Structures are given as C-alpha cells and as structure tokens.
C-alpha cells in the first residue's frame, strides 16, 4: 500500500475530510485534528506525504498551516461554507482518489470520529510531534516537521512487541573508543 503517484492538494484534502465528517460535528477543530491524524498516520505507515498541506503547532494544538486564510479562500471559491465555527463542504474533491488510499483514510477517520472534540484536542496536544515542535508547549507557531510522524506510533497499524534484552548481552565499554557525541 501507499501510492507514490497520488497526493492531495490542500483543498481536495480538506474537502475529502469535510465530506466524511458528520454535519453536526463539522467544525474547524475537528477538521484540523482529523487532517493531522490522517496525514501523520499515512506518513508513519507509508513514509510519504498524503497531501501538500503543512502543519503548525499553535496553542490549539496541531493545525493545518494557514488554515484560516485557506478556508476563507475556499469559501470565496464556493467550495465550502463557513458559519462561525461550522464548516461544510459544497463540493467533493475534484480528483480520483485511489481505492487503497480511500480505505486507509476512512479507517483512520472512523477510528477518531468516535472521540469528542475535547478528546481530539487533548490527544493532539500529547503527540510527540507537537511536544517536540513546541518544546513542551513553550514555543508556539512553529511548523511541525513531517519527519516527526515516525514518532506517532499510536497511529501505526499494529503494535510492536517490546522485547526485553538479556542483561548478559550488554556490551562492555572500551574507553579507548569513546568520543564526545557531536551531531
């Protein structure tokens, strides 16, 4: 799985998610959180971008970078309708989405649609990507590197088995080989 040729534009990605959200739960918070989880789950599992959206770490948690102006632009183009915090799609994505990608995205969205907004909010704040980018919520506004998706193992398809090693196999230190670590 993972389709090297396919990549959503930001607008089509947002439209796909909005078309999947239940109308009474279709707001900016849910849109942003779903986008982040779906994109980072895809990155973790397949090692490639799902969309050309980037993500920023703000005090509301991970969000699509520039989402506010993007949504306003989409409203101007009559792709969506915004009514306070509620956002509804007026169209479907203008792209053929490969079946395997659709199945993957839907599985992630189905899983997280069971959570309330407050739970999505808390979960997104607890991700390593967010904590590292904000230095544990001390610095806001930075872009979240997509490389950090690899840390979000809770988004993985399967749980790894944490094998313990035998202490008998711990290597001895050879002081003559030690050097100071430098990046």
């Amino acid at each position: 799985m993972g389709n090297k040729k396919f990549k959503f534009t930001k607008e089509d990605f947002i439209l796909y998610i909005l078309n999947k959200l239940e109308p009474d739960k279709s707001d900016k918070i849910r849109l942003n959180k779903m986008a982040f989880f779906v994109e980072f789950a895809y990155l973790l599992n397949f090692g490639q971008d799902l969309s050309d959206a980037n993500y920023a770490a703000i005090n509301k948690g991970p969000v699509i970078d520039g989402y506010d102006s993007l949504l306003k632009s989409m409203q101007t183009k009559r792709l969506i309708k915004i009514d306070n915090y509620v956002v509804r799609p007026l169209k479907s994505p203008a792209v053929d989405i490969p079946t395997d990608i659709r199945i993957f995205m839907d599985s992630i969205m189905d899983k997280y649609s069971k959570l309330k907004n407050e739970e999505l909010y808390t979960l997104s704040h607890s991700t390593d990507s967010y904590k590292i980018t904000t230095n544990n919520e001390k610095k806001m506004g930075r872009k979240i590197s997509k490389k950090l998706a690899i840390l979000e193992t809770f988004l993985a398809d399967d749980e790894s088995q944490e094998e313990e090693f035998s202490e008998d196999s711990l290597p001895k230190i050879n002081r003559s080989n030690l050097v100071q670590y430098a990046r």
Partner: protein
Amino acid sequence: MLDSSYKILIDSKFEKSLKGLPKNIKDVFDEKMEYFRNNPSHPSLNTKQCSVSRSKLKELGVDQVYEFYINRKDYRCLFYVINETKEIIIVCIANHTQIKNKLK
C-alpha cells in the same frame, strides 16, 4: 537525575554505523539527541531505565542502563550512565532484531 551537565559519549565504531541507518530514522535520532543533550529526561523522549542487576552494573562499571525510543515500532537507543564522572555513553541504536543480534 540526568541533566544537561552530563557529557554524552559514543563509541567511535558505533558512530560510524549511524550513517547506515535509514535517513528518516537518522533525522529523528538527531532531533531527539538535541533534546537529549539539553535534558536527558525530556518528556518527549520517554526515557526508561532498564532493569539490570547490581552485579551486572558493577561488571560494566556503570550506574544505570537506559533506553529511549526513536520509533517505538522499530528503533531504540540504549545508553549507560556513570554518575560520578557525569557521563552518558550511547551503546547502540537499532531495531529489535538488530539489538538482539548486536548484543549477542
């Protein structure tokens, strides 16, 4: 408690093997090492002390053995701590199978 006053050391042979890691793992390792360098107990690292007997620690000449996950699915980094000299010694970074084989 581990803090930024500890010197981080690495076996020069192991340092060479870092270059053989998948690029995305190496990038995340570098990212995590920046946090580790400033605060080995940084919450994002999920640093965990490993259960090792006193006799083994004495044999190795270290006070504690720790690990933190690069990618919980595959890769983790193992390191030793010597408190008297304030040293952290990176032992290896590998996936589960490699750790088992490397530590044989």
